[in-house]
């Protein structure tokens, strides 16, 4: 249980309703006593330039995308490996002293996923080499700290791209993509990391280096997804670093589409309109490949965008927005054949939308979303211009529950007197999944407002789990809500693997579902 406070006096702590597991509580004092020795050993082993422990530098690692929800522990030392062998040395020392280790790169993870537990924080940013781009077999291999945006810039020069890119400018690494099984806003159609990852190199918690990928383990063959050998890769997908540190990633890439079109379809800004959009998305989903991407931006989120585009502090009439935009469905279409094929798909999509009451209003939002993929931030700036939002909740919902969830969530906001003007909902729909983003906008300078927002969001989280949502990532915050819903046999095997790979439980202890609760 974490205490509350005020950053007018001290800190805006979060208040988490359920107990957060801190399995290292007993051992923290022991390794902290040895910290000088540990730092010295790391410096002697890795070299001084790879180890930082000045207090202000450690303080720069106290937050990630979790923001107000969970005040991360300050690490005791930060290390900067540039090879798998360096990582192995770090893990060896960590096992010797039984000190927790967590790896991160871009630090945009959320939900308390990368808490150092006051131990060693591995900053993967120097593991940033592109090892290979295999144009014939459509794969690329990178060290885990390579930035997704940077990689796409390189791939696009060669006519390829990695399609599960995030719709913002964050420094997201490939190691993180796998640890969190992300896919960004286009992952729903082209697949999340789980689908794209071919193989990995991992330094396990026991110090062993393990290569995975059913073809990656055969010497002198290129990397394919399919082979006749058992594939351990998926064990590490969404493991949030609890089994080991991912040091290399091989991903599938694809050709840049020959043609691309986008369109904004307006639906009534009501529950009926929302329901219609979900029906459209279900129909699009049935016709595999007709659209590469479909985003629902609800009326409240459109209102946020309009306020964002208008400028900070500028008032925008909600009813004008509702009349002009309603709920918007942004559909993007790719073709790997021709512009004509794109046109055909477009017509088919418009027919479906029209059947359900949708009206084509242009492609402004579609273009803004597409530009975001190139790192042009107009969309994200508009979204964030209101104020810093709470960490948005991302969860996959079964299609049939999206509308009832949305309806109940609005009722919940009303019950808690949270103004609907300060929320937004985005859905990313595809044949792979139905990923929803739910966010509220607190005033970060008003502790009471922040705490209320946390409480509202945790109620939304409960609502998600009641309605069968799958966490987009578990971290530490979602864990208490999901544990009792998991199959005990599954949990048992996940935990057995944890004990095998990480016998001393040094790898990101407390994250996700890998340990018993107490």
């Amino acid at each position: 249980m974490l205490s509350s406070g005020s950053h007018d006096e001290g800190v805006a702590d979060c208040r988490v309703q359920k107990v957060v597991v801190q399995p290292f509580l007993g051992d923290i004092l022991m390794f902290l006593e040895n910290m000088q020795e540990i730092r010295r050993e790391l410096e002697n082993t890795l070299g001084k330039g790879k180890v930082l422990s000045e207090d202000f530098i450690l303080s720069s690692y106290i937050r990630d995308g979790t923001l107000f929800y969970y005040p991360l522990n300050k690490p005791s030392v930060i290390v900067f490996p540039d090879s798998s062998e360096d990582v192995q040395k770090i893990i060896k020392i960590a096992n010797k002293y039984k000190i927790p280790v967590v790896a991160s790169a871009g630090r945009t993870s959320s939900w308390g996923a990368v808490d150092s537990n006051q131990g060693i924080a591995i900053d993967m940013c120097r593991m940033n080499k592109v090892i290979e781009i295999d144009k014939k077999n459509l794969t690329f291999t990178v060290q885990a700290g390579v930035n997704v945006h940077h990689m796409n810039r390189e791939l696009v020069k060669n006519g390829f791209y990695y399609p599960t890119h995030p719709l913002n400018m964050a420094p997201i690494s490939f190691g993180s993509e796998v640890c969190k099984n992300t896919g960004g806003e286009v992952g729903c159609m082209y697949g999340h990391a789980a689908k794209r990852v071919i193989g990995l190199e991992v330094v396990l918690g026991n110090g062993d280096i393990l290569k995975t990928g059913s073809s990656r383990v055969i010497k002198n063959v290129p990397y394919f997804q399919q082979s006749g050998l058992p594939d351990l890769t998926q064990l590490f997908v969404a493991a949030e670093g609890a089994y080991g540190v991912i040091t290399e990633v091989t991903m599938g890439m694809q050709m840049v589409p020959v043609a691309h079109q986008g369109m904004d379809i307006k639906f009534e800004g009501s529950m009926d309109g929302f329901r219609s959009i979900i029906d459209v998305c279900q129909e699009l989903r049935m016709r595999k490949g007709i659209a590469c991407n479909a985003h629902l931006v609800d009326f409240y989120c459109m209102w946020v965008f309009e306020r964002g585009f208008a400028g900070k502090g500028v008032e925008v009439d909600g009813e004008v927005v509702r009349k002009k935009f309603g709920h918007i469905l942004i559909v993007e279409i790719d073709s790997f054949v021709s512009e004509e094929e794109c046109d055909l798909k477009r017509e088919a999509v418009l027919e479906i939308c029209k059947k359900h009451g949708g009206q084509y209003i242009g492609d402004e939002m579609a273009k803004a979303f597409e530009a975001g993929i190139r790192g042009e931030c107009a969309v994200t700036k508009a979204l964030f211009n209101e104020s810093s939002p709470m960490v948005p909740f991302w969860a996959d919902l079964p299609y049939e529950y999206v509308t009832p969830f949305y309806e109940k969530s609005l009722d919940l906001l009303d019950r808690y007197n949270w103004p609907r003007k300060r929320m937004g909902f985005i859905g990313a729909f595809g044949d792979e999944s139905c990923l929803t983003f739910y966010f509220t906008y607190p005033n970060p300078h008003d502790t009471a407002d922040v705490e209320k927002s946390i409480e509202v969001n945790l109620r939304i989280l409960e609502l998600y789990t009641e309605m069968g949502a799958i966490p987009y990532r578990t971290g530490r915050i979602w864990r208490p809500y999901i544990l009792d819903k998991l199959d005990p046999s599954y949990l048992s095997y996940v935990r057995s693997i944890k004990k095998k790979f990480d016998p001393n439980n040094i790898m990101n202890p407390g994250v996700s579902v890998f340990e018993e609760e107490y």
Partner: protein
Amino acid sequence: MKIGKEFVEKMKKNEAYRKVYECLCCGACASLWPNEHRCSMATRYQGSEANPRGLNWIIQSLLEDKLSFSPGLVDFVFRCTTCNQCTVNCPASLEPRSYIEALRRDLVEEGAIPKSVMEVFQSVSRFGNVWGKSKNERSSWAKDSDIKTVSEAKDFEYLLFLGDSAYVERNQETIKKLVNVLQKSGVRFAYLGNEERSSGNEILRMGEAGLFEMLAEQNISLFKKYGIKKIIALSPHSYHALKNEYPKIDLDLKVEAIHYTQLIRDLLVKGKIRFSKDLNIKAAYHDSCYLGKHNSIYEEPREILSAIPGLVLVEMDYAREKSVCCGGGGGAQWIERGDGVVVENIRFKQAMDMNLDVLVTACPLCAQQFEAAKEYFSEGRMIVRDVIELVYDAL
């Protein structure tokens, strides 16, 4: 240096610092950099959090009494080159540079300044320039030139403001060529000679607002004394100070400041500059931060270069508002480098990988930084040139 609790108490009352609580931790302040680089603040500590986002959490820790100031932290604050990338990128409109500069101002007031920065302040205070050289050496480059000072010239339209680049041998070549091109184009101009003082841009960026005000007032009094109405600035840093900061010092100041590339482009359009030589080179233009990100001047240098016969102009990766800083601005050139990122080498290497004949810039500070990078790489083939040098070569 010792910074006590009173300093932090003062920080708590300053609204500028409260902005750090609005940070989303999105990392946009650093993300659009090339893969191997985060921010110029990483010149000692190469890590993902040696950037404005990390500084936000440091400031939060200070405000919450969880962290004390240290010499290392003070040093870190002075590593920012004020390139403005964080401000351009930030989706929450935090303008990190504004509170980095606020923190510098507060530290300067407290007397908590890195030694090398203090030396620059002392140099400016004594000699009116950042290099510690005599005021009388400012126009030493002009001994073989027929450029006239404002007191000598009978009639002139523009003041040519050279800034402290006039003391740097490498940049003196640029100056001579600029003077030559302006004369050949029929521009009526003069310069302040040894009366000129540093524009003070880097002094202001480093937090010495009082010293900057002194410099600005000295220069402004000269503008008024000589009836200056229009100024051509050689350096984007001087340009930025003259255009954006000086009017805040003197609200009655009625002077139009332009960067020289703006004038040269106009002269080209009017046919006052004609090229006769084919340069036969492949070149890329590097957008300097103070011309580009701070003042949105991107096209004029490109238009000039595109007009030069035989010059094939290619675009660098990370161009215009995404340009990678040369690492010299904001006082960073005077901060002792550590084992971290060598900023100018990153940009220079990008240029080398493009197989260029010439890396072009319109900023004397960028030119200095890249010449240093050239020495580091022992790169023989690619040369560094200012835009005006290529104009001169093609005349």
